[in-house]
């Protein structure tokens, strides 16, 4: 493994408080080191006039597993005329657009300078295959969050107020699935979907289990803090995508009041609200649909124990996929395209529907504005992360375009005024009146330092501090001479000039140069022996599951390069 000295770049590392200073970054043995630690044989990379950041960290993206595969199967046309020919020497054929192949996913993230991606929803029963696919996604390190919010064990334990039992089950599930965090999707609502119902407020009782989403969310926060997990609960709240849902969102976020984080991994939040754009809608119909980004962000800004990610609409043709089964059925009723639905036994469900966010559709344009407003209203960018909920609101390779819109009022105004219904979109949103333009430091917070901290992996990712994993992105853009054409911002972030992963140069100007081994991160939490939970697991598998308990866990060969985060709460 070579040594590299990345010289004279404008370095942005919010963790160290380096804000565009001209300095050098050194790489050796796969890690970031002090420049003095290099030998004289180090390869020098001239980064003068360029921007240097740590490798990007994506907190929420659907890139591997069962529902991504359903998306690929459902949409052969997603590959039509959108699959570049094989170009590089080491890279393989790349295919697809909104649901790209594993190879294209790994390469495109790498080209944008990302080094860690969190798979946003892993149905526990599908964990072996999810890991198999993560293994086949080159270069980028990954982890996956098992979906909990409608799990029968959890519903029963929380109904009875048994936090310790729920924690013991959760720890077992995390280990069995090699999972990373507690993902909650439409708590209770997806289970209700099994009865053809939904929970659109946090007070709707779940059929049969007779527990409300509010009780589930509070119970899971308590479970998460009992287990002292690196990440907080990761919540997709109830009532996604409906006009007027911002009230549900605010009510949901208020559930976190009074809880404080208990974790040794540095996070400060107890609840992460993902793709907030989809949850910040006003009005009571698509006719008077409007932005409530300000109302939602006014609350988020005050609450230090919350983090959020954007879920920006990028105005592309894409594929929506979520464990929120009832929502996908509802969406199919709106656009009449294709619909796939999956039931995952005792655990969750999923739906997939293609969606075209049309540039001249008023509702889509308002959604686009809301995503940007959430970022622009945010006061603390260390708690606000850039996502598109890939591929739900747009494909992940549009992050550079979102960065352009956030950094350049000119670029977003040009688009806003080009809409067919521009006047109505402006009237229903705040975007036109916002002058704020993001700085490079804020972008580094939103795409690296912030998500790494919120995930509890800031000891490995998100900074250029010596000792961190050797993940560095060098972008061909000069913060002291910003290009007159905002499109240059997008170009620079789409194809980094140099990308290093664990100290290896993996990409240069978009060409993949190497595909070194990549890691799967997961959390192994040791909890006190719990005979009841063990028996419950045994009984449920015997009675209800279609697989044997012995065949359920992820076998080691499916995750050949594991980085296990060990926790011991018995101590």
């Amino acid at each position, binding site marked *: 493994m070579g040594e590299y000295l990345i010289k004279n770049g404008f370095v942005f590392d919010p963790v160290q408080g380096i804000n565009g200073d001209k300095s050098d970054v050194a790489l050796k043995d796969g890690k970031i080191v002090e420049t003095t630690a290099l030998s004289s044989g180090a390869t020098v990379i001239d980064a003068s006039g360029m921007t240097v950041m740590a490798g990007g960290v994506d907190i929420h993206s659907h890139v591997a597993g069962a529902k991504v595969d359903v998306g690929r199967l*459902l949409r*052969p*046309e997603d590959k*039509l005329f959108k699959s570049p020919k094989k170009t590089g020497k080491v890279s393989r054929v790349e295919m697809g657009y909104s649901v790209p192949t594993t190879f294209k996913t790994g390469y495109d993230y790498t080209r944008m300078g990302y080094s860690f991606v969190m798979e946003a929803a892993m149905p526990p029963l599908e964990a072996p295959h999810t890991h198999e696919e993560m293994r086949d996604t080159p270069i980028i390190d990954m982890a996956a969050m098992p979906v909990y919010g409608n799990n029968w064990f959890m519903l029963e334990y929380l109904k009875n107020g048994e936090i310790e039992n729920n924690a013991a089950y959760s720890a077992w599930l995390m280990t069995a699935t090699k999972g990373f965090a507690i993902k909650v999707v439409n708590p209770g609502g997806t289970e209700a979907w099994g009865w053809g119902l939904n929970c659109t407020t946090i007070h709707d009782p779940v059929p049969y289990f007779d527990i409300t989403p509010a009780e589930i969310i509070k119970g899971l926060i308590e479970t998460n803090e009992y287990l002292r997990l690196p990440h907080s609960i990761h919540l997709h709240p109830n009532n996604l995508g409906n006009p007027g849902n911002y009230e549900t969102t605010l009510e949901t976020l208020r559930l976190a009041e009074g809880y404080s984080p208990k974790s040794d991994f540095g996070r400060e939040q107890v609840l992460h609200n993902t793709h907030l754009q989809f949850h910040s809608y006003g009005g009571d119909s698509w006719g008077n649909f409007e932005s409530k980004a300000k109302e939602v962000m006014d609350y988020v800004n005050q609450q230090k124990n919350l983090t959020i990610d954007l879920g920006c609409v990028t105005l592309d043709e894409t594929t929506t996929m979520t464990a929120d089964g009832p929502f996908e059925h509802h969406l199919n009723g709106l656009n*009449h395209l294709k619909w796939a639905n999956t039931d995952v036994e005792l655990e969750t469900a999923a739906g997939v529907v*293609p969606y075209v966010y049309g540039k001249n559709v008023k509702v889509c344009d308002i959604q686009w504005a809301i995503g940007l407003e959430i970022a622009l209203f945010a006061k603390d960018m260390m708690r606000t992360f850039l996502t598109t909920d890939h591929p739900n609101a747009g494909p992940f390779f549009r992050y550079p375009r979102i960065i352009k819109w956030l950094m350049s009022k000119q670029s977003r105004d040009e688009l806003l005024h080009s809409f067919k219904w521009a006047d109505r979109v402006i009237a229903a949103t705040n975007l036109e009146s916002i002058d704020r333009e993001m700085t490079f430091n804020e972008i580094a917070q939103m795409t690296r330092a912030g998500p790494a901290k919120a995930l509890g992996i800031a000891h490995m990712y998100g900074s250029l501090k010596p000792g961190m994993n050797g993940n560095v992105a060098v972008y061909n853009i000069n913060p002291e001479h910003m290009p007159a054409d905002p499109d240059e911002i997008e170009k620079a972030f789409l194809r980094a000039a140099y990308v290093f992963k664990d100290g290896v140069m993996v990409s240069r100007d978009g060409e993949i140069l190497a595909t070194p081994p990549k890691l799967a991160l997961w959390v192994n939490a040791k909890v006190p022996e719990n005979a009841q939970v063990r028996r419950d697991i045994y009984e449920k598998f015997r009675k209800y599951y279609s697989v044997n308990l012995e065949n359920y866990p992820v076998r080691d060969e499916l995750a050949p390069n594991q980085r296990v985060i060990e926790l011991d709460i018995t101590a």
Partner: protein
Amino acid sequence: MKTVTLTMKNKPELILECNNVTPDAFAGKSLADIGRLEVYEGKFRAPLADYFEIAGEAGETAADTRIVMKGDCKRVKRIGQKMTAGEIEIEGDADMYIGGWMEGGRIHVKGNVDAFCGMAMKGGELLVDGDAGNYLGAAYRGDWRGMQGGLIRVKGNTGNDTATFINGGTIIVEGNAFIHVSTHGEGGTVVIKGDVEGRVGGQMVKGDVYVFGNIQYMLPGFKYMEDVEKEIDGTKATFAHYIGDLGERHPTSRGQTVYANLYVKA
């Protein structure tokens, strides 16, 4: 209009993908440059000139360029794909995807073609003197955006799945069609002059289908309204008018529910 003639000299062992054989790709090029255009035989790339004798002269623009294909093109696919103007004449048979995604101009095939011809066509004209295979004028697999404009005329028969997801344009089959005509249709016109085995207009929301012969198995989702007199493609006739597919959602226009129309010659 200037003409380039391609004569097959080395028949490919595998299927030859000729999406570069269009007036758009040829226009303004010398014969040598045309010969260097890339084609695929299976996974192998090769220049067009490896397979064809190339003669004549290309026009300055696509509209001013005519391509004549001679020899055995039975295993040549994708001729005229995405073409916007000009003319192509294929003197014998051709393989799949002829005139796929075509936007303008004219293709005349004197023999038969295989499946997926005129796929997702937006404009122009595709004329086949012989038979066409399955998926004539259909949408690409999985896509909901089928034929949107233009004219396809097949003098012989066609196979299954004609005009799937048709949205606009006209398809005329002078012979028979087998099963699945205008499935998921949401516009456009399909005329079958011969017989159809069945499944005409399944899940069809909007658009018209005319059948001059018999439909052996009628779908239950269509309801008879009345007999009407119509002139179709130069022939006047009385048709039984059905609306459907009643099992499907239907849009409204000016307060009226819009149905797909199926006309079967009475």
